[in-house]
């Protein structure tokens, strides 16, 4: 499980409301996705493209259970990296099939526009632009199983709990 993508860097304690504001919950997903970082980085959703990676600082995703990962996937974001995740946000990302890896120090080695290479099995990430690399903890096997299925719902469908 290795990916490479262009990086966007955000700060510490970026909240779920900054990514999925309350008013956007009234909209269908493709429209709601246009409001990610609506106040933090206005216009960002016009610039992000398929395959990009979002890198954040501490306590990433503080806040609610709204499925932010669905919006990132809608926009083409392929992975999240952070110094530290809020645990509900981390679970929510994985459960919706968006790879998310805790890499202490990651925010310090990336700037907007750099290219990141990430290996979720071995648990490292590298700034391809600067060659800085950080080894962290790999994703556990059961988490990789969820991601490999594309999230919990496809996994449950495979196991016969949900209509295919």
């Amino acid at each position: 499980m290795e990916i490479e993508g262009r990086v966007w860097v955000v700060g510490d304690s970026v909240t779920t409301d900054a990514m999925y504001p309350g008013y956007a919950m009234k909209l269908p997903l493709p429209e709601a996705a246009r409001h990610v970082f609506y106040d933090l980085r206005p216009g960002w959703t016009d610039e992000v493209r398929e395959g990009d990676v979002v890198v954040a600082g501490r306590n990433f995703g503080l806040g609610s259970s709204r499925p932010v990962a669905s919006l990132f996937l809608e926009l083409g974001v392929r992975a999240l990296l952070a110094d530290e995740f809020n645990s509900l946000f981390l679970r929510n990302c994985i459960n919706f099939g968006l790879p998310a890896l805790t890499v202490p120090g990651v925010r310090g080695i990336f700037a907007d526009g750099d290219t990141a290479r990430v290996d979720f099995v071995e648990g490292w990430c590298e700034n391809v632009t600067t060659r800085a690399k950080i080894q962290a903890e790999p994703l556990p096997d059961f988490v990789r199983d969820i991601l490999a299925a594309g999230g919990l719902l496809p996994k449950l469908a495979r196991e016969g709990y949900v209509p295919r």
Partner: protein
Amino acid sequence: MGMTMIEKILARSAGLDEVRAGQTVVSEVDMTVLIDLQFATGWVQPLRIADPAKVAVIMDHAVPAPTLHDAEAGPRARKFARDYGIDRFYDVGRHGICHQVIAENGLARPGEVLACTDSHTCAGGAYNTAARGLGPAEVYSILCTGRTWFTVAPTIRYELVATLPDFVSGKDIFLHIAGKHGDATNRNLEFGGPGLASVPMHDRRTIATQCAEISADFATFGVDEVCRGFLDAHTDRPYTPADADEDARYEDIREIDLSTLEPYVARPGTVSHNAIPVSQLEHRTVDQCFIGSCANGQLEDLRIAADILRGREVAPGVRLLVTPASQKVYRDAVRLGYVEALADAGAVVTNSTCGACFGYHMGVVAAGEVCLTASTRNFKGRMGSPDAEIYMASPATVAASAIAGHVVDPRKEIA
């Protein structure tokens, strides 16, 4: 080596004698709670579920439906409850904010595991329950399989001593903690000590609920006589509390002398390292005041507000909104005269819903406005415009401030 409260509950739920911080376990879930939002977006009715007797469905976030999108959740929820024979279905009229309904119906029980989508599910920790928000996909998975995984985080214990002064509430205890210690990301919080006896159940639930704001995993309280009194009235099945062992291992133990606390207020944006005593806040006028949510829409919160507002008036130019946390709270507040006192003072008392707390309906704030809220969250944009400012305080502080027209210490205003 002993275990903390949460370690004991997770060990029990996983069929293990012992768990340690850092360990990942698979837990049997005792109660799974679905909310209306689950049915509004991406709902597919499952082909089979683990156990209908361990499921509750509660309509709370967007009721009565403010949009067609939300309205469509209703028939799906009703069909699901009917098809699977879900007895614990709290439809509009029997409804409330899920964490309040969970408490009223004894669904959060000592030593057990409770799963719900909503981030404030940690509220159940007030009843010694391992309860936390897990997101819609995971709650759906637990609905189907009856279990999920947890990685045991290190625990920080708050040791409460002395007695809570008048007009100082659970909200103030929480804001003191958040202001002084900041966030507790990937940590469990545990509350106990001799001072706990002076903290009533509604205040414990405010504290447990708000631990989501400091990014904690689980927040659990011990079971004492006060808690047993509550549980006796709300559950008739026997339960097994999880007490912390004498030699439990904590990352930190922090003592709080309750007698030294005063009313606190959080400035806009976050509660972490951003809350100060109201007495230290500069003059701050308010446009909207709000008392509600799973944190502060409890009957006792409404009583406190009603007692302050009875015979007084909300200041000109100020809106005061009060949202009971459940239909039961609403009905009790009507019977006890709280609604009359609030409405006579100029407050708008709404139906029970998550509504204004998450900036969705019934009380959205405009750019440039200042809102003082006794609810869960003060993030930028949380209650409407990102250019509104959201301050957070206790129901007493909010009620007194609504009369004054600016943020005041309720002890001075009500003297």
